[in-house]
């Protein structure tokens, strides 16, 4: 038998039934829910008189709409009435259907893709879905994880399965070693810059090679998180000792004899050496430098030593038009050096970069320095209540506050600006989030995607700088 990829193995072990028409039913081990994409699903379930197939597979939290200030005041204190109603609706649905939920203010609450791994609710070998495209994050654990729409949220609640068709296998091998001061965020932005925003469409991408293996679990989550920005619903990394070490002892992790059996099973969660991939891409990890996006989608990115492109140099009329439109929206000049881009706000947070290591990296850069006077606001939004607690134990909050950063409560915050945290029209933001789409962080806002260290350095300098010179 030909070797199987990691994705093949995960698919095979979750196949409930293969239908004649090519579709299949796939079993879902973990379903994560949040307030934005679930209300219509719960409503559909009620209207049809259905109940959740397997309650214990579900875990819910509120993250997109929650304020990042004064969460202890409770849901009733959320100022925006539509946000408040959506958060209340999840509370009511979880209570009515008896779904486990970490409510706002619970220290275990936070961004859904941060808390899953943090709780051990995401385990190697699982299928994990959530009504959010960044569910790809959980693939860092050798889990088959992807985002779904609201109809599928309802489908998973009702059946514990999804109707699926097998994706293609793609492997992105990042050679190593990575250069000094180069982070997981730089790696994934460089990958997207190389393969494009649709480079992985229809595929499950396995990230491999020394450049990936050398990353911590948190770094691998950052990489898998943005697989969707390369068009792939699924990002994967093979299981190794780091995976198992990370999972060990978490609240939802297996224990005792279960743990030993699980670890034995998980060691097989790697692609066989003779496995065939439909697409193979090699990225030279040794030449990646800190990345900064200059345009309005994540493939519009370059290294810190680079320049904004000149549309006149582009032959394809559609690509040229897209760059011209992006430069106009971003208020940038062709050929402008990246280092000359000045920032109005800095946002460190989001499901891409709000874990403890991200905050440590940023704190190391800002320690003893001050946010530039020209920067209106620099904010740190931890990914969960537990990340916040840990950072405070380490004194990171003091470093940030003394440098002039705002230290906030957990949530999605300015990544998509559904709560009060947002950019004003025309403002440039160094952001550790995942999407630089027009208006994503606020109508007219101009997002530059960077790593936490790069965002921190930009906050201090007031413009982009090569953080490697600061380390």
């Amino acid at each position, binding site marked *: 038998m030909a070797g199987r990829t990691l994705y093949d193995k995960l698919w095979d072990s979750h196949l*409930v*039934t293969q*239908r004649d*028409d*090519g*579709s299949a*039913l796939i*079993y879902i*081990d973990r379903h994560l829910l949040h307030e*934005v*994409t679930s*209300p*219509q699903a719960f409503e559909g379930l009620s209207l*049809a008189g*259905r109940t959740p*197939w*397997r309650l*214990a597979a579900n875990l819910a939290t509120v993250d*997109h709409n929650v304020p990042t200030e004064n969460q202890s005041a409770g849901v009733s204190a959320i100022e925006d009435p*539509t*946000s408040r*109603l*959506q958060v209340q*609706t999840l509370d009511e649905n979880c209570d009515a259907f008896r779904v486990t939920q970490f409510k706002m203010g619970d220290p275990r609450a936070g961004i859904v893709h941060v808390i899953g791994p943090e709780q051990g609710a995401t*385990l190697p*070998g*699982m299928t994990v879905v959530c009504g*959010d*495209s960044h*569910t790809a994050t959980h693939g860092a654990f050798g889990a088959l994880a992807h*985002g*779904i*729409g*609201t*109809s*599928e949220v309802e*489908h998973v609640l009702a*059946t*514990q*399965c999804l*109707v699926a068709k097998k994706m293609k296998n793609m492997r992105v091998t990042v050679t190593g070693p990575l250069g000094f001061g180069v982070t997981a965020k730089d790696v994934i932005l460089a990958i997207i810059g190389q393969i494009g*925003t*649709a480079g992985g*469409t229809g595929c499950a991408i396995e990230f491999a090679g020394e450049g990936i293996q050398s990353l911590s679990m948190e770094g691998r989550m950052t990489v898998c998180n943005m697989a969707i920005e390369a068009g*792939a619903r699924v990002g994967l990394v093979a299981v190794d000792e780091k995976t198992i070490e990370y999972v060990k002892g978490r609240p939802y992790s*297996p224990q005792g004899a*279960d743990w030993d059996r*699980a670890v034995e099973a998980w060691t097989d969660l790697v692609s066989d050496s003779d496995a065939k991939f439909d697409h193979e891409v090699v990225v030279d990890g040794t030449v990646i430098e800190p990345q900064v996006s200059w345009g309005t*989608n994540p493939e519009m990115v370059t290294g810190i030593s680079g320049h904004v492109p000149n549309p006149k140099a582009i032959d394809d009329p*559609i690509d040229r038009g*897209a760059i011209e439109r992006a430069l106009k929206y971003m208020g940038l000049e062709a050929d402008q050096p990246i280092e000359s881009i000045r920032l109005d706000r800095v946002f460190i947070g989001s499901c891409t970069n709000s874990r403890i290591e991200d905050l440590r990296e940023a704190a190391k850069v800002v320690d003893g320095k001050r946010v530039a006077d020209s920067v209106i606001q620099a904010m740190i939004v931890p990914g969960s209540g537990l990340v916040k607690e840990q950072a405070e134990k380490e004194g990171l909050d003091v470093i940030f506050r003394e440098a002039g950063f705002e230290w906030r409560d957990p949530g999605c915050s300015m990544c*998509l600006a*559904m709560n009060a945290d947002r950019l004003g*029209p025309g403002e440039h933001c160094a952001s550790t989030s995942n*999407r630089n*789409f027009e*208006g*994503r962080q606020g*109508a*007219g806002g101009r997002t530059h995607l960077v790593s936490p260290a790069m965002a921190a350095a930009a906050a201090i300098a007031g413009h982009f700088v090569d953080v490697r010179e600061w380390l």
Partner: protein
Amino acid sequence: MQQFVKETGLVVPLDRSNVDTDQIIPKQYLKSIKRTGFGVNLFDDWRYLDPGEPGMDHATRRLNPDFVLNDSRFSGASILLARDNFGCGSSREHAPWAILEYGFKAVIAPSYADIFFNNSFKNGLLPVVLAESEVDTLFALATAETPIEITVDLESQTVTGPEGFSASFDIDPFRKTCLLEGLDEIGLSLKDADSIKAYEAKRAVDAPWLFRD
């Protein structure tokens, strides 16, 4: 689910690639807990000149005269013509909800983002994939002075239009059946309830740590 069998209608040419879901329906409208009310905010940032918020009277907002959806020649259109990677970005199903509620029944593009593509089928919106050259031809036809009407026929898997335009498209057989018959996918899956239970029983033996409920 809403059926899709055949649609004949005016075509709106949206000539840009990588149209993301934040453009299709901006996040402030995702705070709604309903499935309806999104059509008026489809392409909100491009369609209106003033910033939009939920609860506004959108009929009184200033329209962007340069945006194709506001061109009166295309009023009543039911087919959206787009470029590569349409619907990239988030998993929000509000995107197909908004497109449908505006009045579109089908989208035609050379490629789509996976989640958007999948979400469309669940709601009776047909995302047709045509070759780049066929899409180019349709853009040339649709951007001429007089708007064009075309027919998307799911049964025969064809798109036909003026000047002898004719193209065929592929579609997954399961999705085709669901669309043609307007089937309830959950109901269909629940017919396999015994298979699901059998899978769980076997899996609980092989991987018991996943079933410590």
